């Protein structure tokens, strides 16, 4: 049994790099990634699981990092926006207007990455089920829809 009390040192494997960080057990993964590891691409939007700006991957599973304690995931493989290697997806977001202010974009890209890894053959319904997890206040979702479908190799108008 693992027990963490007070400030503890845990090992996080993030974007294939090993980080040894001192955390409080109460620290969320979001705060640790941003403030202890210094990867600020993952964003704080609500810390309530509603907006998705904090989305990253934990062992490949798309996760809202504001709702996870860092100590829960020590030893797992975490992928943040800084470790996203999918140029096709990123280029699609650029070419199809998938962002404006860019604040929700890291979260959307991580969610889309997980979705595309599952299967590139995507129905509208499946895309909706996944992407409705993230809020965007700028684009009206049209550009995001085009970008994800383009990255999935579907014809876009």
């Amino acid at each position, binding site marked *: 049994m693992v027990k963490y009390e007070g400030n503890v040192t845990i090992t996080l494997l993030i974007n294939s790099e090993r980080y040894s960080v001192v955390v409080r057990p109460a620290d969320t993964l979001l705060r640790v990634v941003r403030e202890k590891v210094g990867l600020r691409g993952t964003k704080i939007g609500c810390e309530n*699981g509603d907006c998705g700006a904090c989305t990253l991957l934990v062992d490949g599973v798309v996760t809202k990092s504001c709702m996870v304690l860092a100590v829960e995931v020590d030893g797992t493989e975490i992928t943040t926006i800084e470790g996203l290697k999918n140029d096709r997806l990123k280029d699609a977001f*650029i070419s199809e*207007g998938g*962002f404006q202010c860019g*604040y929700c*974009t890291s979260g959307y890209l991580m969610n889309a990455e997980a979705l595309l890894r599952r299967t590139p053959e995507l129905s509208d319904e499946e895309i909706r089920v996944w992407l409705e997890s993230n809020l965007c*206040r*700028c684009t*009206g979702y049209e550009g995001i829809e085009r970008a994800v479908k383009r990255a999935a190799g579907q014809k876009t108008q």
Partner: protein
Amino acid sequence: MRRSERLSGRQIVGTNVARADGKDKVAGKVRYADDVWPPGTLFAALVTSPHAHARIVSIESDGAQSLPGVRAVFTGADFPHRLGIYLGDKSPLANGKVRYFGEPVAAVVAETEADAVEATHRIRVRYDELPTVNSLADALAEGAPLLHEQMDEYTHIPDIHPESGSNIANRTKVRKGNIEKGFREAEAEIEGEFSFPPGDHAAMEPRVAIAEIGADERVLIRTSTQAPFVVRDLISRAFEIPVGKVKVVAPRVGGGFGGKAGIQLEALAVLLSRGVGGRPVRVANSREQDLVSSPGRPGLFARVRLGARRDGKLTVAKVLLIYDSGAYADYAVNVSRAGGFSLPGPYFIPNIEADSLCVYTNHTFATAFRGFGHVEMTYAMERAIDHLAVKLRMDPVQLRIVNAIRAGDTTGGNAVMDRNTGNLPKCLETVSERLDWNKGTRTILENGCVRAKGISAFWKAPAIPTFTDASVIITFNEDGSVNLSTGIVEIGQGSHTGLAQIVAEKLAIDPSAVHVIAEIATDQAPHDWQTAASRSLFMAGRAAIAAVDDAVAQIKQIASAPLRCSVEDLEVAGNRVYQRDDPDHGIPLPDVVVHYVYPNGNTIGGPVIGRGKYVARGLTGIDEQTGAGRPGLEWTMGSQGVEVEVDPRDGSYRILRAACCMDVGRVINPALARGQIVGGMAMSIGYAARESFHFDSRGRVVNGTLRDYKLLRYGDHPEYIVDFVETPQADGPFGLRGLGEQGILGIPGALSAALSLAAGRQIDSLPLTPEVVWRAACGASSGEP
């Protein structure tokens, strides 16, 4: 092809140039305000009021002060001054009483955020509750409790007229023609009342400000703001520091929508930093604070009476707009003013009597919000026009076309519309065609669902001070590429890209060779009013053109010597300066823009610095009694329409299509322009269909999280159809008009019209939830009036 011709034929304005910050945004590399903390940053946390209206009896903070890690605790007593951009009515921390649920009452500064938040839980505030002014009716009732007993002492700009002894923070009047005459001439009349509750911007990036103060009293603020120069000015005045010693840095902003205009958390951050010896202090809103403690947008009550002839021509409008601006009116006094002076919308009506009021209530207070009072005005007028269309048995599109304002007509303020007037009839026709209006606006499907369509028209000019300014500085690098310094903040609207395109077009170079400085620092960027009001590209664009002209004049002046010709014979394009009638006779710009060196070493010229500026031309205030004046720089108008499919059994509906046609003068970047319109429409759908604050019987917000304050989600969005008309704006850069806000204006009216048609009964309030539609349909079928 000759080098000089390589780029001259290529169009840059009007094409889809990619955003310069695009690659950084998809890589998570953009540094927003909260992504950079100076060493030694301390963290603030707030205690906020659990009451909507109460006297503060006592604040005990000993339990907080004694926690290790806590550096200081502040209350309103530490800064009893009131601030405000138009009306100084609010202190950063409440003084004496709280006027809205969530109002900040105390602040803790500590070594870590956890320490600060923990400390706030140890602060005991005792309140004596006061009667709640929980509605506009409450606020305006005889003997209503006064939210601001000391309103007479507040400083305000001359254009604002608070009414002593009341909760009215401002009244704007429009008196045009003679309404008695107008009603006599009318052959049909309607009157209606229209309303909706307050709401919020809900930008994805919550507000944050980090302030520090140097040993020489220099203030440095890094903040998520649309208004770095306004912040600088207000901080300077509030803290009595020379303005040149206040530096505000605006990085890339994660959405503003007006909520980061004016002054937001910055004064509090400076106050806290001052209290801890100038160490950097970060004040960052939680999402709940961003929704409820920081301001949102006003609510509305409106009463509109219209008269028209049988042919549809409007003869008269009598309008009352009352803006629920909540506990503080700071910015909202101008919002209600702008809504007032933009009446009656993009229509010509010869006789108008209107009052637009900004009223205090104990609700979440309002600041600038996309549309700046025009969503409210447009909703009221468009509903009224739809009521009139029914009364006249006239097609709603035709009724609007008949009354569309044209060049030569007068506005509500008796200003004459000039030849830059947009083509509203064309916009209306386009939207109606796109939605197959002629094929019918109400159809019952086999499964019992009802498809219905609604349309609206709108307009807005920037609501700006008459002295609004913009300036741009251009410098050159050794390779001839350009650096552009502007005071416009990139908040997602794409203005930086638009500016790069304008400069690139003028210099006939690739836009990627124009580097727009991303972060705006007030001690480096040239002055700019603020990034709001849909005037950024218009005004900074004019300034950029002027800066290019200035730089080109200098380049020609320098080059004329080695080229041994007169300045008039020279052209600058494609990174060269050359003789127009002999293009091969020229010099590469890299050889000129820093200095020109003759073969023997003699040097002339020096770094070329292009300076450009623009001030709003010909604007006036508005007359206090009649509203007459010319406050609008340029009016961007258009039409929006929706098609919905409603299930009458339970009122649930989908918006199938949302169309917009807007006359923008000139489209600089079609993809970015479309993005602004579509984004505005999405926000407009949220505004109309589902977003509103709910207050309990004691004025407390009950839905102050994103779980309960519902924004449009992916999958709820319709098919968007966007068209542009380009009736040039002669004084706009390349003929453009502003368009950042206008996308939000038309859906409340259009959606209300469509759902009213589907339900068989007029629905005159927002939000348009399925329950509301269901009730209307029930009322219709039971024959209620």
